[in-house]
């Protein structure tokens, strides 16, 4: 059975690339364009992993991350935060709030896929 990945990002140009890439890698891909939509998608589809952009409308990535970690039944969902903010304090904040990985933009497609696979394999 294909693993489900949710891409939560409001930037179309990165979503198109990620969606194409992950489908090619054999994942089932869901897309949400803001924080509220992301939480709704998670509740409906219960994905295995969420690619979470920090800067999003309605609820930012930090808030979505914290909400997710407050729900015990969502504990198993892996979170990779994607952000153009790459300072140490922001990385620490993301990890402290419960992200499994904080990836700074720009990133390598191949590495991202490898990291997704590694996280899902560890689960």
């Amino acid at each position: 059975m294909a693993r489900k990945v949710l891409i939560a990002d409001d930037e179309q140009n990165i979503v198109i690339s990620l969606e194409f890439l992950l489908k090619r890698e054999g994942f089932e891909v869901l897309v949400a364009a803001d924080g509220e939509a992301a939480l709704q998608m998670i509740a409906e589809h219960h994905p295995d992993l969420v690619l979470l952009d920090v800067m999003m409308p309605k609820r930012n990535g930090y808030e979505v991350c914290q909400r997710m970690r407050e729900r015990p039944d969502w504990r198993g969902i892996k979170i990779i935060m994607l952000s153009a903010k790459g300072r140490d304090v922001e990385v620490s904040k993301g990890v402290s709030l419960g992200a499994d990985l904080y990836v700074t933009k720009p990133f390598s497609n191949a590495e991202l896929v490898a990291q997704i696979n590694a996280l899902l394999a560890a689960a």
Partner: protein
Amino acid sequence: MKARVKFALWVAVLYVAALGAAAALGVVLGAGQPAEDREALLRMLAERAPALVFVAAFLLFVCIGAVKWLFARYVTAVRALAEQTRVVVEANQALRVSTEGAREVAEAAAAINRLAEAHHALRRDFEQRTRESGAQLGEERNRLAALMSELSEGVLVCNAEGRILLYNEQARALFGAGRGTAAAALVGLGRSVFTLVDRDQIAHAMEKLQTLVDAGELPPITRFVAATAAGRLLRVRAAPFVDSGGAAAGVVLALEDVTGLLGQEATRRKLLQALAADARAPVANIRAAAENLASFPDMATERRARFVDIVASESQVLTRTLNEALRDYADALKANLRLEDMRVLDLLGVARQRIEATLGVATRLVDVDEALWVRVDSFAFVQALAFLGARLRDDFGVRALSLSARSDGKLIELDLGWTGANVVNDALSAWESVPMQIGPEASPLSVRDVLDRHGGEVWVKAAGAGEASFRFLIPAAEVAPAPLRAPAAPTESRPEYYDFDLFRSSGTATAQQERKLVEITYTAFDTETTGLEPSAGDEIISIGAVRIVNGRMLKNEVFEQLVDPRRPLNRESTRIHGIEARALEGQPAIEQVLPLFHRFCEDTVLVGHNAAFDMRFLELKEASAGIRFAQPVLDTLLLSAAVHPAHQDHRLESIAERLGVRLIGRHTALGDALLTGEIFLKLIPLLAERGVITLRQALQASRETYYARLQY
């Protein structure tokens, strides 16, 4: 008794006595004669009545003449003698009395002169000895002055109220810049340091110093960065000084211009942040699309076209971002960066004091690493901590807070912790973005602004068992500066170089009117004008002023400014003040000059000669310059008339001569201001002798003189 009344009385007494004597003679002559002889005599007198009236009138003139002669030689001469003697005693020791009166009076004058000579000699001897004993002190002071002028740093020494006790030229130069003497003159003895450096910053530095002193730190020094009115950034090192009793008496500020330094740092930081935030996203988009294109050559044509399109459009976005970043921030020298290296322990110490004092919330330090240093705007950061503390107290009833700090080397984790209240990140997000308000104290900044300035972050961290904290993450100081441990100089030995005693009493809250003349700070001033009638369009063309502090005229704290009158000068006035129209071209207008002068004489009593005249010129310009001269004004003309009512001549030169003041630089505004100031200082003891001690009494005495009734 008034001289005039006394004169009239003497004449009357003498005249009545002479007439009485004549009448008595008549009665005595007539008493022994037979009746017909008496009648013959009366008839004879009646026939000669006009001659008798003439004789009576002649007698009156003789009486007046005699009394006048006596008066001039004895009464007026003695009065003049008394007045001159007063001048000798109070103002001009070298003056000798003279008289045009009787020989007896001349003898008295000679005796007085001998006494004056003896007194003068005694005084000279006394002064000589005082000088000798003061020479060593003076030498030490000169050494200090030389030392201060050698320093590359500016130095300001203030008492606990923020009055400047001592400064050097470098400090003046740092706060000057731009407006010439007028702005630099704001650094002056007795002036408030708060007009130069933000009051809250100094108060904050004082708090910090108190914390260090209490902790026994030697030497107690704190640093901050302040912006000057002219836009310079000064790095300030502050150290407390103590009085002979060991109590904190004030603060020494060492100033260094770091405008360029911090400006560059700020620009660099902002540029990097802008690039990081704005360039990463488009690069990420391009990279993801390009890697897909490279990795999957078999993709459908439309999809390939879509990815190529992404690469093209995102490249343009990136180009724009780079150009904007370079344009916007290349010249951005913002003066809001006040980051300084500080020990975390000290920062939290100040924060605790602040939170306990303003919020009434108990605080404790838990687990703080003493070796941690942080790069921080301590004032803003403490404000942020106190603000969050206030919100916790008001919205969640939190009554006790803990503070802790640790580090992994690069970042400092600083926790503001509490127990019991369930505070979520949403609440924090809301508090973060509003301007900080703690009771009546409002800041334009939000917690988010403060964090951005520090490159920091904050979130809610739950620690279980109802314990939670705001976790602040801020960069550690790049180099933890080694605490200076200078050989501890005995603190008692420090203040003896300074002449601070004069300022000890300045804190008394006596109403200004009841303050003694000798204690008040004055601005002696003068103006030159195009003519004598301000209401007819005459204008000020020059203002000069000098400060008088504690009975001393500070000749290097002066205000001197020419003013463009925006009207032609007439020739007569140019003859008086010697200012040519050419010299006034390009000078500022009165509306620009008056606010500077107003600042120069802030908190002082104005002193002018015939001040009503100058004040009318100033008052006519108050509205257009947007200021008001509300302080009391003393007039040396009126005060001189109060001191020497017998003299008719109260022109500046005449008073100067009377009081032994040398005339120099007459008829320039500054020259006359200096002369007026010197005369005023000589008048103070003469006034005191007449019981005029306080400002209120001086104003009262001025009002009562004859000259005050004249209208200008």
